[in-house]
């Protein structure tokens, strides 16, 4: 009997992924298509980012995808000049948090944004990014 193949799409997320399999593996397909997506509970309408497969409010597990779109406000950030194991090649890089109102997005600021241009409160947008090692993540760019 053929062994059923494990769906390990999530191992493509980020420089180093620590999770191979999740019920929201479709998130990776969306990144491949240039979309950053969250989930909305079909039961109560709550929007979640990062996407979840289960709603803790109504205990419903029926979810719909939505696109992270428009701009968010930069809540805070930090520029790393020392990295954990596996991330040394990315240095220096900025991790950051954007507030979209209904939800927040944690990620990196695009390398193309100059350090002196980064200001807490500035408007930014979230875009898909392919890393040099072929992995996928998303980054924040200045909104025009």
């Amino acid at each position, binding site marked *: 009997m053929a062994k059923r193949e494990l769906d390990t799409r999530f191992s493509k997320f980020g420089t180093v992924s620590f999770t191979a399999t999740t019920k929201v593996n479709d998130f990776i397909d969306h990144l491949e298509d240039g979309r950053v997506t969250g989930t909305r509970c079909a039961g109560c309408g709550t929007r979640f980012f990062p996407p979840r497969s289960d709603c803790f409010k109504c205990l419903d597990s029926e979810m719909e995808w939505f696109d992270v779109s428009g701009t968010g406000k930069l809540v805070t*950030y930090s520029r790393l000049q020392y990295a954990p194991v596996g991330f040394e090649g990315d240095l220096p890089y900025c991790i950051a948090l954007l507030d979209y109102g209904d939800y927040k997005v944690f990620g990196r600021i695009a390398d193309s944004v100059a350090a002196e241009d980064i200001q807490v409160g500035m408007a930014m947008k979230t875009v898909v990014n392919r890393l040099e090692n072929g992995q996928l993540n998303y980054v924040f760019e200045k909104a025009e």
Partner: protein
Amino acid sequence: MGKVAIIGVGQSPFVRQYPGSIRELAFEAFKDAMVDARLTTEQIDASVVCSAPEYDKQRSPAGVFAEYLGLNPQPTFYVETLCSSSSTGLRLAYSLVASGLHDVVAVLGFQKMSEISSSESQERMGRGADIQWESPFGTMMPAYYAMYAQAHMATYGTSPDDLALIRVKAATYGQINELAVYRKPVTFDMFTDPESRMTGPVASPLRVGDCCANADGSSCVIVASEEKARAWCDKPVWILGLGAATASVNLAGRDLFTGLAVAKEAARQAYGMAGVGPADIDVAEVHDCFTIAELMAYENLGFAQPGEGPELIRSKATYKEGEIPVNVDGGLLSKGHPIGATGGSQIRTIVLQLRGEAGDMQVRDPAIGLVHNIGGVGLYGNVTILGR
């Protein structure tokens, strides 16, 4: 429900590299606490062992320690809330004693961080956050706290100089704490010297001087029922209030970035249970894994209003002679931060202060003390209030 007391405290020296195994490290703090409490092992009814996992090859250290410390056949339990593991251990010991299940419980915290390299340790600690959605971006503890520092600076105009003052205070007391790993003086000028190790970059706006050092160490706190405490102990220190809280592991699930919501909530619970307020606290130990963490603690514990924490350090109100002395044992910044041992070490400092046995670090006649111990980046918050 009867009162619950602390009748013995102990700590190993916190060192860069402990020249022994984890059971031997645990023995050092245990012996110190047992001598302090003048107890023999058969008087201990149960033990609680606290550390952050994944540093040791040994799985389930509690059972191993019970044998090595002579605590068979009494029961033992392992608890873990990252850097606040031993405060959680104290909470568990309190409930075991208050429920009447046990009379005397030993809380043992330990960590031998030198088992792995510093960058491996950063990676382990980073995975104390959201490994599915955040770790793939290359996160680590200093960077998370740096994000809080950045938000505090952007909101309130706090400066890197304010953070430097916190490190200078820590070093003032670290120099006189024989158990601290970092005992060299640190001056404010070092933070304006680009050649100084203190200004080495880590994660903006935090620099090397803003970060505590990894260390190996152990701590032990012996908790007893009111009956045993009165019978066996001349200077019992009473557990007056306990608070514990949790928050979203992912920063995206949080609303506050200029402070830690878990600290505010744990403080509210502990003050309520003890029936006291911030103005009643005579001496405090706060979780200064980074300088910004101490600054936020001032505000989250109510020692200062939101945004006014920097004024406390600028005016030296948190020095030993000040209005509210904080971390007059050098704090994590000087003592070092052996994760599982840290909470027990903070509790030990306050117990010694309340007994009037803190030596050169003694604050004048304190009656009520507070311990603030955080796990992860505000993932777990614990506040404990102790009194004579």
